[in-house]
């Protein structure tokens, strides 16, 4: 337990320091959200209708942008070799690294979403809906991405390959996230139907991804 807390704090520290990339995701999120109205035009009805979808796409890309470094940085400097010799099971190490990554990348996105939603003229229930769906949906993106990150840990420039590997598996999360966010603003589908499925996807990813990622890391030590 002490080892896991130490690992979590180390990851937070690394993300906060210069070059750690802790703010990359949220800045990228801001860039996408702020240029969208320029491209789409100042039609508030249109923006407010597609706003939740834009926020979700931005969140997905912002999560993936730094995720390739999740294990690669440790693989490059030899830290990963030492983590293999620790008594802590590799699966738990993966879980803690994912949680720390989510706390430094996903959580800021969730906190920024209400503000950025206002920039896209999303209001009231829609704003609450998109924030709630991002809160329960972004952990799934991190966990699914961790599998890709583990598979490409030993590759130089593995980021693009990771995105190609991971994106198809994030599509269900995107679909149900946007569906729930849209349902929050009214419509024929009740909010809880897609939202429950989104929760289930996150739980599934959290339960399965650590084993898959740890197996990929073990297989990759050559």
């Amino acid at each position, binding site marked *: 337990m*002490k*080892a896991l*807390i*130490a*690992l979590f*704090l*180390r990851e937070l*520290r*690394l993300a906060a*320091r*210069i*070059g*750690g990339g802790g703010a990359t995701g949220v800045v990228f999120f801001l860039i996408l959200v702020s240029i969208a109205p320029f491209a789409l035009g100042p039609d508030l009805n249109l923006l407010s209708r597609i706003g939740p979808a834009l926020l979700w796409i931005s969140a997905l890309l912002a999560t993936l942008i730094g995720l390739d470094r999740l294990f690669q*940085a440790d693989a*490059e*400097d*030899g*830290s990963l*070799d*030492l*983590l*293999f*010799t*620790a*008594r*802590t099971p590799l699966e738990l190490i993966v879980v803690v690294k994912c949680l720390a990554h989510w706390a430094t990348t996903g959580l800021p996105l969730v906190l920024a979403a209400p503000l950025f939603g206002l920039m896209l003229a999303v209001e009231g229930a829609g704003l609450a809906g998109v924030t709630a769906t991002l809160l329960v949906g972004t952990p799934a993106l991190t966990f699914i991405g961790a599998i890709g990150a583990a598979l490409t840990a030993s590759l130089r420039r593995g980021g693009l390959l990771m995105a190609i590997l991971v994106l198809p598996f994030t599509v269900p999360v995107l679909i149900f996230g946007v569906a729930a966010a849209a349902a929050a603003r009214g419509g024929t589908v009740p909010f809880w139907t897609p939202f429950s499925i989104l929760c289930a996807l996150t739980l599934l990813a959290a339960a399965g991804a650590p084993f898959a990622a740890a197996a990929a890391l073990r297989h990759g*030590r*050559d």
Partner: protein
Amino acid sequence: MPSPLRLIVDNLAIDRGGRRVLEAVGFAVAGGEALVVTGANGAGKSTLLAGLAGLLPLAEGRIGLDGADDPEAPVAEYCHYVGHREALKSALTPRESLAFWRDMLGAGRPGLEPEAALAEFDLAHAVDFPCGYLSAGQRRRASLARILVAPRPIWLLDEPVTALDVASQARFADLMRAHLAGGGLIVAATHAPIGLEAARALHLGQAA
């Protein structure tokens, strides 16, 4: 340590990239003994140490540890692996790095505090310097200090004295002798003599 440890390697073979790098390597090292592995570049010294540390799958053979507290635990959990890469993050200070590795690798056994371990390697003045600013030799010393904060009985050292100055090499030789005197094991791969006169030698030939 209740009973003397004994590291037994039997008929070890390791493949890398589809090619057999090590074949039919066997030796035994008991507590208090050191084994120095020599051989030409590419003879498989680093591969042997990484295999002992559990970082590479074994193609054949067996690595066993007699006298361990927990016979079920993998041998790697008793090992400190010092490889070519220092496992230091540029953004963290040596104190933070060592505190992390103490908690991660320590498993309850008391070791030195990070400051004391760094002082052993004459790095007391650099504890709060980000590792990115340290010289190659200082990084190597900070990395070696890791094995003092989390005591483990087996030291697997891959070219441990690279980039170290003469004084630091002598200091590290003293620490290795103290570790052996305390019942520890050392398996070191090296080209240069590292100050272990009593060490046994294992010469690896070119793999077929």
